[in-house]
Structure formats: C-alpha cells, structure tokens
C-alpha cells in the first residue's frame, strides 16, 4: 500500500529550467522511504512539488502527477495540502527566529483544532526535553541542533500522515544526527506516519529507511530495499565513500564516467 505516488513528474523553474525530468517514486504507508542524490539532483524540488511550495518559487509541474492517497494534489495550494496531512520540514530548518519555541510550535499546529494542541505539545516535549527547557527562548538564539529539533517538533504538532524531511542531518554533529534519526524512527513507529526522507547522509538515511531511491539530474537512477542499496558497489562508491582498492585509479575514473552515463541514459 502506498500513500504517496509520484508519476513521471516534470518540473520547470521560471518557465525555462527543466529540473525534474520524468521522476517517479512512491512511499509505502507507514514506512520510511529515503531519497538520495548529489547536490542539485532535484531532491528538494521533488519534496516541494509534493507539498505545493513550488508555487511560490516560480516552479511549475508541467507534466506527470503527484497522487496522495490516490488523489492528485499537485494543483492544490500548500495550505490545502498541509490540511490534508502532508507536512514538509524544509531544508535549513527555517524556524521563525523572532518567535519563541512555543510560538513556533503553535505555528506548526496552525491547521489543527485547538483541542489537540496541549497533548501534541506534551508529545513534542517528550521527544525533545531540551525544547521544553527552552520553551520561552527565541528560536533565533538556539543552536543548530535545537533548531532542527524545533523544526521537527513543528511537524509533530501538525499531526501529519505524510512527513517530508529535507536533510534533517544538515550541519549537525554525528551524535546529534543519530539522536535525530532515532526520533524520526520512533515517531514513525509510534504514530504510523509515512516518511519521505531526503538526505546527503546516505548511510544514516538507509539505516532507518526500508526502501531507497537514488536520483541524479532530475530522474531516479536506482531504487531498491535499503539493504540492497547499501550492498550495491556503485552506491558504496558514489554515496557511501567506500572504494575497493586504490591501484586502478585511472581505469576507475573512466568506469565512473561510464556508469554515470548509463545512469543518465
């Protein structure tokens, strides 16, 4: 059963720049799906196409569709999509710096009934005790890690069915990355929320996800269960930074080029 299905999606920025070139993927209900790829591959664009945030950026879906629970959503404004249960945690945290922690969390709860605010707040504070300690602090004065917790806390307040996470590990120390991924996993398991996780940190992402997609240049070039991807030599080389033996460097770089060509084909 899939909650999200993206079919042959084409996205154009400013009427000229074609960034997604027929991208297809799906996210299974209640599971974590990873979307990996190099800088500029179009991962963020994919998430924005799902959450509707493209509209404000001169980005447009020119072909294909985004099906959420079987219904197309790519023509809806973002507030409707959030109300339908899709919530994107944007790249770079994007907390409201001159609002305090609790006010930020209230923004996350904007689309939810008042009655669910208090229990959800308790839930967020249970996941992130550090946010509770700093509840009256301005978000702008918090550390990067605390801001990322706040960004995810806002998402929890929104009670999403589909959570889109854009590089939650960005700029965090390894221990904190582990903590954040652990919370993502716990949130996924206890609430049954479906997660689409975009990451540069392929190893961390594949360790929590059941299934992964690798994209390059606006297309999916490889997909499979996380275990298979972790064991795939190409993935190991390009995304996990492992290489087998250093001697045949020249040959390897040629081969590298060929492989890229094939992926693009």
């Amino acid at each position: 059963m899939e909650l999200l299905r993206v079919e042959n999606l084409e996205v154009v920025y400013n009427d000229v720049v074609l960034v997604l070139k027929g991208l297809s993927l799906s996210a299974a209900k209640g599971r974590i799906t990873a979307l990996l790829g190099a800088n500029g591959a179009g991962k963020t664009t994919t998430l924005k196409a799902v959450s509707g945030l493209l509209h404000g950026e001169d980005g447009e879906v020119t072909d294909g569709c985004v099906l959420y629970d079987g219904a197309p959503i790519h023509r809806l404004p973002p507030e409707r999509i959030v109300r339908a249960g899709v919530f994107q945690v944007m790249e770079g945290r994007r907390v409201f710096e001159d609002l305090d922690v609790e006010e930020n969390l209230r923004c996350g709860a904007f689309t939810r009934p008042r009655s669910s605010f208090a229990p959800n707040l308790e839930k967020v504070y249970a996941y992130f005790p550090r946010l509770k300690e700093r509840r009256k602090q301005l978000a702008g004065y918090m550390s990067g890690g605390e801001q990322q917790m706040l960004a995810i806390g806002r998402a929890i307040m929104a009670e999403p069915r589909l959570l889109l996470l854009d590089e939650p590990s960005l700029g965090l120390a390894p221990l904190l990355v582990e903590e954040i991924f652990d919370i993502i996993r716990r949130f996924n398991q206890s609430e049954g929320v479906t997660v689409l996780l975009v990451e540069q940190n392929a190893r961390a992402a594949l360790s929590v996800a059941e299934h992964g997609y690798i994209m390059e240049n606006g297309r999916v070039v490889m997909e499979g269960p996380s275990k298979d991807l972790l064991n795939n030599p190409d993935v190991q080389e390009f995304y996990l930074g492992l290489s087998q033996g250093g001697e045949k460097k020249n040959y390897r770089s040629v081969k590298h080029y060929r492989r890229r060509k094939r992926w693009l084909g």
Partner: protein
Amino acid sequence: MLEYYLQLLVNGLVVGSIYSLVALGFVIIYKATKVVNFAQGELLMVGAYVCYALTVQAQVPFVAAFLLTLGFSVVLGLAVERLALRPLIGEAHISVIMVTIGLSSVLKSLVQLFWGTNIQVFPEVLPNTPVFIAGMPVSPVYIAAFALSFLLFAGFSLFFKYSRLGIAMRATAFDQQAAQSMGIGVKNIFALSWCIACVVSCVGGVILGNINGINAQLGYMGLKVFPAVILGGLDSLLGAAVGGLIIGVLENVCDGLAKDVLNLSGFKEVAAFVVLVVILMIRPYGLFGTHEIERV
C-alpha cells in the same frame, strides 16, 4: 508660560496618538507584506468621511456610525488588497509602491467627488466643557481620543502576542515560505494585514474628524507616518506607537517654541521632517527597528 507648553504637550500627545495609529497600520502592512503603503493617510481620510456621511448626512447616531465605519474599513481593506495588491504579488517593489501611490490619488479623488473640498464639521459627540487634569483644562474629546488609540494599541499587541492568527502573521512576516509550509494561507494573512491597517487608520480618521473637522487635505496626515515609523523602526509596532507620539509632541512643541522665541510661524509642517533627516543620519534603523532592515 509653562501652561502654554503643557497645553502644547497635550495637543502633541493627542495628535501623536493618531499618528501612531496610522503608523501602526503602515508597519503592519510593511511587516507582513513588505509593501510600503503610500496611501495610509488616504485610508484615514476615507474613514473620516464615511463616518461624517453616516452621522451628518444620514443622521445615524454616532456610536452606530462608528461601528458601521469599522465594518466599512474591513471591507475597504479586503477590496484594496484583493483588487490592487494581490495581482502584484511577486512583482518588483517599485511597481507595488507606484500602485499604492495610485491608490492614494484614487481615494483622494473619490472623496473630493462625493464630498467636495470644503471643511466639514462633525457634530459634537462629547460635551465640550473641559475636564481638569492636574489643574490643566483638557477637552474630553482629547481624552477619549487618547484612550481609544491606547486601547487599540493594547488590543493589537495582545492579538499579535497571543492569538493564533497574530502569531501566524508574525511568522509570515519573518519567513513567508516557511509560514506556507505550516499551512498558513499567506494570501489570507496579507488580506488580514490590510484589514487591520484600514481599521486603525479609519479610527484615526474618525478621531481626527471629531477634533478638527475634516477636509480633502486630510490625506497629507499620511506623510507624517514616515518620520514616525522611521523614528520608531519600520518593522516595530512599539516603535510605531512611540514614534507617532514623539513626532506629535515634537512638532507641537517646536512650533510653539518657534512662535514664542523666534516669532516664526509655520514651523509645524517642517518640524517632523527635520527630525526625520536627523534620525536617518544617526540611527537609520530607528529606535526599535531591526538593524539589517531594508530602507526604502
């Protein structure tokens, strides 16, 4: 002599509280939408004339007329945002500024068309026997004006601090796209900003009408919001309040001084702008404004 200056101070505070209201409207629009609204003074004028039309021409009792004017200003705010500003979302700043300048001419012409250019006087709502405060005679309408401005400010401060929509407006002002990602309808927030700006300006207009009477030059009041908001900081509500009061007091006291000491009259009109130039030189982000804020 001291009495003379105290009287000027009181006048300044009352006029200043009206500047504060208009400045509040300006700051709310600027914060939420980054639009510099050159029609703020004309919104005040329209409010004053609508209330005048209701009380004098339609003989509606003042309180009812006042409430109707509030209702009208909400509709006006929605209409202006929808018809004039929304089509321009995402356009260059300069085009948006030109539209607000155009809007100010349109509103001015409409007022002249309907009501002519003569001074019109409101009926007296409050008794005009002065109340004595610390031995100084103050007209009740002044007290009411000041109290009403203060209440509006307090109300909106609470609204922005505690209400769901107020917090959403602050979030939108800080980061529009992030606000959208929370499910906050940014277009609704823009419309709401214009509504609030219209309401506070129209209230300012009604107050002013009760004090001074109204004419078609009332819109120039709007020019005074620039020294007020630049003194207070373009993006600060508290700054709008304090800036408006300071400008009101300064221009009255300076004018009095100029008359008294130098035998000069007409200094009132320029005092505020002298202050403006000085602030821009020494503290361009204002008393309470954000430092890196963009100046227009």
